[in-house]
């Protein structure tokens, strides 16, 4: 098949795909949604760095806003048409000859925007836009401003590609892309070793998950190709094949593939076996945690399972595994969340547990409920993270809730939005959390999914029980968090604790300094001579007051390019001021001087403390978790590795203050969203029509419903045709129980921390010392992994290395010795027999040569003449032979005969 037919078959196939779907939009318009953030990224990385901050922020937010507008447009078009939008650019991987000689297009540059994708892209772009706006002011002081926004844009771009991809390969591109961006953003302040290692940890753990994902996807691809002859990884095509041959696919294979894909999802969405990276991911800036580790990336696993629902439906055992892991994660993470003192760690564990809920929802077959919880969770968890960011911003980098308290009066807006979001999270009825969580619990209870498997009917009931307790624990630790941060008596006044220059990359704050630090702390030192030239001190366009001493960046190198290290070296030449006796004063000043948190820049005493924290054998394996440092050391101050930086406020001023307008705007919108969005999923039991479930029906419902329900759905917009569980009494009971769980959790939390000022908590920790230690140190999972996985690997390679030296080398040397002996033997034979024959031949040739040599006259002209004459004779002979003419007869004919 030559090139031309090959290309024409390709084009004609491409055109078929385009006509099938309603060509409402030109493919490039749809591709603009994911590509605009990527262009934003390119702009930032290449041009943005040299531009002033307002331009950078305008471009990056503008790009996301454009994507947001486009996604709203697509949402309305999909809503009205009911048909998914297909944007096909052209074939991507085409393989000739796979299918009986014909050209089979494995993967295409194709984006599909159906109902599920609409939900996701709306979440990503809207919440993304709000977080971009939020981080404008949050990162205002950041030196590498453009780099941050470029990574954020790139992340949004990849996330959009992930959700809009029409085939597994393109989704995997997005999958890996978001993993990359999360690595980049977690390790954003890479000067501190912990952040860099946290980033690496996140990436490695994700890769483990992705390995499983790839294995699953590839086995599915090869199996479908081999047995049904359909070589494709396009979701729609796979769905048709699988639903068509539902019973032909053996249970073993579908279970294996689903479990592999689920492991991939656990890696990405931080479920029990592979969740360890999410708490450490808090090392990144807070808006990043909000966007990536709360709203979008971590939900990729849930989206994938929702997208591949036709596959998961095949194997109830796999769904059972998914539900089990989800439930266990929910309760497990929830329990850890209770004992955490760092505000972001609490939220991180709460995210893990809520993801557990989503997996539970998806596991029991209620894909719509799982996605709905994802949808609502994105709103209030993002609001919580941004709230915590604004708290940290206000408190000048302080993240330890035991050091906060009484911020209600200081930061009213943040308080009210934080409270609203935490109530939504804990599942208080009118707010969003209640509807989504309750729906999942009800589906778990009433599911008939596992009746066929060995587990029987009660499995669903157990899952519901675990879910309810998890909901209660969620309510409890959220209340604990709210009380300790906002309502408790202000602890920050006494400790004059929080550090000043919370510049990103700033040094470890005073938090691990001994308690009796004098008032003359770093924060007190105010004005540092402004360096007129440095661009970063140009009046920040944002209203946020640029109070406090200009961050050490003033005398930092102008361009924020990677060249900083070089300049640092020169800078070190400048002798640090003489170590003043009183550590506070000069220590304070000098501390400002150093930049990029190089420990060795610090005065002696500070670095001393670092060593203490670094574990003796920390270097080799990947990022150990700093807070699993020996318990004695971090005595109760819950040191977190990004304390001391992580907020852009940079004000060393004593009083925590309300955050600037941009942050509040994002907080308020998200809080309002988390309140209002719940009504989308108003359950039929309470008389509403579950709009969200209907909306996802075409994508998610099992195929037969889809075929039948699709038309009816399009026609009868709201008439509840297929309501099977209309007002089943048990549903009301469960609803009451879940409200009770939420209320109980809040009440219990209020009793322990509000009314009795955390006293019962203290004596509980005294009484069960080691239990508290265990929970606070996250059941020492990291040490478990280290002991169970990393160290054995190290020992293994030592073992193989030793084996190699002794055994293998031994064998080789032995063989060599045998070879030498054999060689000696053959050498003897060779000398006597062979040489004799050769010498004889040489003598013979010499005699002949002596005779012939005389012909060699050395005169080139003679040689040429001889050659020419010889040549002529040869040609003549050849001609005669060729024509076999009789010489004599031609001679007579030419000269005698007629001319």
């Amino acid at each position, binding site marked *: 098949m030559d090139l031309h037919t090959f290309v024409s078959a390709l084009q004609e196939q491409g055109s078929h795909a385009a006509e099938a779907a309603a060509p409402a939009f030109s493919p490039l318009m749809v591709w603009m949604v994911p590509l605009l953030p990527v262009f934003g990224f390119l702009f930032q990385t290449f041009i943005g760095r040299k531009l002033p901050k307002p331009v950078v922020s305008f471009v990056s937010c503008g790009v996301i806003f454009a994507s947001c507008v486009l996604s709203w447009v697509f949402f309305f078009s999909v809503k009205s048409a009911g048909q998914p939008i297909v944007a096909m650019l052209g074939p991507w991987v085409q393989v000739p000859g796979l299918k009986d000689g014909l050209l089979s297009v494995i993967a295409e540059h194709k984006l599909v925007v159906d109902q599920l994708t609409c939900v996701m892209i709306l979440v990503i772009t809207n919440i993304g836009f709000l977080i971009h706006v939020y981080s404008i002011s949050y990162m205002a002081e950041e030196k590498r401003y453009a780099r941050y926004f470029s990574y954020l844009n790139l992340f949004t771009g990849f996330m959009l590609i992930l959700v809009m991809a029409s085939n597994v390969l393109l989704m995997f591109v997005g999958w890996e892309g978001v993993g990359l961006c999360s690595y980049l953003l977690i390790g954003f302040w890479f000067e501190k070793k912990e952040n860099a290692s946290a980033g690496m940890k996140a990436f490695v753990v994700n890769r483990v998950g992705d390995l499983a994902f790839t294995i699953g996807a590839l086995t599915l691809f090869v199996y479908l190709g081999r047995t049904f002859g359909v070589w494709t990884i396009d979701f729609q095509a796979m769905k048709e094949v699988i639903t068509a041959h539902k019973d032909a696919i053996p249970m073993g294979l579908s279970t294996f593939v689903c479990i592999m894909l689920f492991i991939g999802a656990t890696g990405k969405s931080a479920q029990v076996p592979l969740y360890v990276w999410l708490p450490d991911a808090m090392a990144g800036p807070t808006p990043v945690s909000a966007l990536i580790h709360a709203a979008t990336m971590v939900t990729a696993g849930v989206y994938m399972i929702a997208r591949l629902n036709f596959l998961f439906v095949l194997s109830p055992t796999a769904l059972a595994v998914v539900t089990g892991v989800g439930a266990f994660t929910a309760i497990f993470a929830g329990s850890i969340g209770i004992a955490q003192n760092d505000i972001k760690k609490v939220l991180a564990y709460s995210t893990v547990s809520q993801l557990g809920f989503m997996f539970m929802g998806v596991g029991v077959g209620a894909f719509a409920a799982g996605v709905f919880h994802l949808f609502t969770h994105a709103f209030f968890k993002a609001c919580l993270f941004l709230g915590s960011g604004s708290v940290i911003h206000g408190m000048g980098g302080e993240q330890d809730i035991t050091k906060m308290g009484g911020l209600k009066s200081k930061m009213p807006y943040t308080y009210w939005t934080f409270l609203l979001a935490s109530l939504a999270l804990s599942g208080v009825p009118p707010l969003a959390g209640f509807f989504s969580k309750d729906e999942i619990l009800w589906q778990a209870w009433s599911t008939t999914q596992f009746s066929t498997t060995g587990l029987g009917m009660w499995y669903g009931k157990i899952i519901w029980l675990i879910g309810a307790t998890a909901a209660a624990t969620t309510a409890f630790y959220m209340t604990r968090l709210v009380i300790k941060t906002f309502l408790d008596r202000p602890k920050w006044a006494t400790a004059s604790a929080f550090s000043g220059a919370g510049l990103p990359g700033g040094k470890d704050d005073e938090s691990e300094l001994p308690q009796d630090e004098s008032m003359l702390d770093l924060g007190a030192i105010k004005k540092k001579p402004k360096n007129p030239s440095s661009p970063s001190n140009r009046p920040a366009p944002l209203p946020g007051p640029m109070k406090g001493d200009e961050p050490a960046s003033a005398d930092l190198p102008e361009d924020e390019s990677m060249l900083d290290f070089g300049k640092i070296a020169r800078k070190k030449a400048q002798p640090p001021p003489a170590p003043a006796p009183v550590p506070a004063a000069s220590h304070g000043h000098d501390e400002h001087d150093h930049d990029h948190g190089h420990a060795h820049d610090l005065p002696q005493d500070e670095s001393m403390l670092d060593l203490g924290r670094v574990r003796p054998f920390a270097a080799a394996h990947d990022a150990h978790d700093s807070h699993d440092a020996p318990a004695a050391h971090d005595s109760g101050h819950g040191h977190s590795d990004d304390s001391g930086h992580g907020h852009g406020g940079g004000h060393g001023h004593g009083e925590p203050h309300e955050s600037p307008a941009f942050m509040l705007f994002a907080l308020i919108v998200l809080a309002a969203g988390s309140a209002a969005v719940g009504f989308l999923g108003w359950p039929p039991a309470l008389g509403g029509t579950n709009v969200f479930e209907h909306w996802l029906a075409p994508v998610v419902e099992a195929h037969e419903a889809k075929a039948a329900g699709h038309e009816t759905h399009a026609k009868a917009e709201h008439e509840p045709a297929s309501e099977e569980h209309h007002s089943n009494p048990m549903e009301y009971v469960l609803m009451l129980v879940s409200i009770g769980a939420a209320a109980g959790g809040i009440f219990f939390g209020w009793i322990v921390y509000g009314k009795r000022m955390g006293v019962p908590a203290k004596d509980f920790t005294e009484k069960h010392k080691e239990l508290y230690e265990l929970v606070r140190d996250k059941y020492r999972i990291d040490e478990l992994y280290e002991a169970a996985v990393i160290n054995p690997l190290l020992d293994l390679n030592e073992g193989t290395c030793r084996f190699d030296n002794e055994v293998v080398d031994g064998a080789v040397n032995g063989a060599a010795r045998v070879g030498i002996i054999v060689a000696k033997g053959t050498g003897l034979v060779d000398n006597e027999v062979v040489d004799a024959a050769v010498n004889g031949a040489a003598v013979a040739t010499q005699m002949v040569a002596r005779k012939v040599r005389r012909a060699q006259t050395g005169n080139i*002209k003679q040689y040429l003449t001889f050659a*020419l004459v010889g040549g002529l004779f040869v040609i003549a002979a050849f001609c005669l032979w060729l*024509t076999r003419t009789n010489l004599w007869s031609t001679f007579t004919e*030419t000269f005698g005969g007629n001319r």
Partner: protein
Amino acid sequence: MGAAEIVLNVVFYVLAASAIAGAVAVAASRNIVRSAFALLAVLFSVAGLYAVMKADFIAGAQVLIYVGGILVLIIFAVMLTHRITDVKLSNDSTPGPAAFCACLCLLFSLLVVVRYSTKWRRDSDTVTARAESFEVSFKQYQADGATGLAFGGGAYEDSVVVVATVSQGPDPLRILDQVQFVATSGANRVSRNFPVAGRDAPYRHVFEKLSEGEWRWTVRLLGRQKDGKDEVDREWEFPLANTGFTVTRGVTEPIALALAGPYLFAFEVVSVLLLAALVGAAFLARKEVKDL
């Protein structure tokens, strides 16, 4: 002969003259630099001859490699091997009469061989086709009308001469009115009608300006057939098997296909040889070659 042929002939003779003049100058000129630049004239005229023979790629290659490469090398060699001072460079030779006579007789023998051994003017072989009572004998010639064009062979220029005779056996029923020769190559089709001539009178026609490609011949006899009283117009068409010819323009594509096809191995070997020559020449011509 059209204007184009005449121009081509004039150009051929001019180039031939310059080639021979150059060759003689190279052989006989006293000043070696003069003979070098005479070689320039020879090379250019040979390139021109290739162009006349419609071998355009070879003409280009010839100029590019010979003039651009080899001649520049020769001139450099000439300049490097003669002390710059004397412009008039001796180019002494051993002008013995023996060499001259040898070459003359060589030339003579070559001319004899050319004149007698090759019969270029082979007549075209004929193809006869029979159908019902008709018999067509068919011949095709090159543009000059004398040299036979082998069936399936290539035409020199883009025009071909056809000579055919149509004879009819004793058959009262069919009367022949017209004879038509049709040449088809893919989409384009060229045809020529002849009124019926005498029994063995030849039909002769020159087809001009044929486009590139493979051409096939078919003969169509138009006539009337009598069945019963009335006469019905009939048409007999029979394609002449394994006849036809090819018209090609330029020689680049055939060479490329040959180089990439049967001659691929040779092509690679030549590239290796060129590399060896390059390295060898550089090594030999380096400055301190004292110990050679």
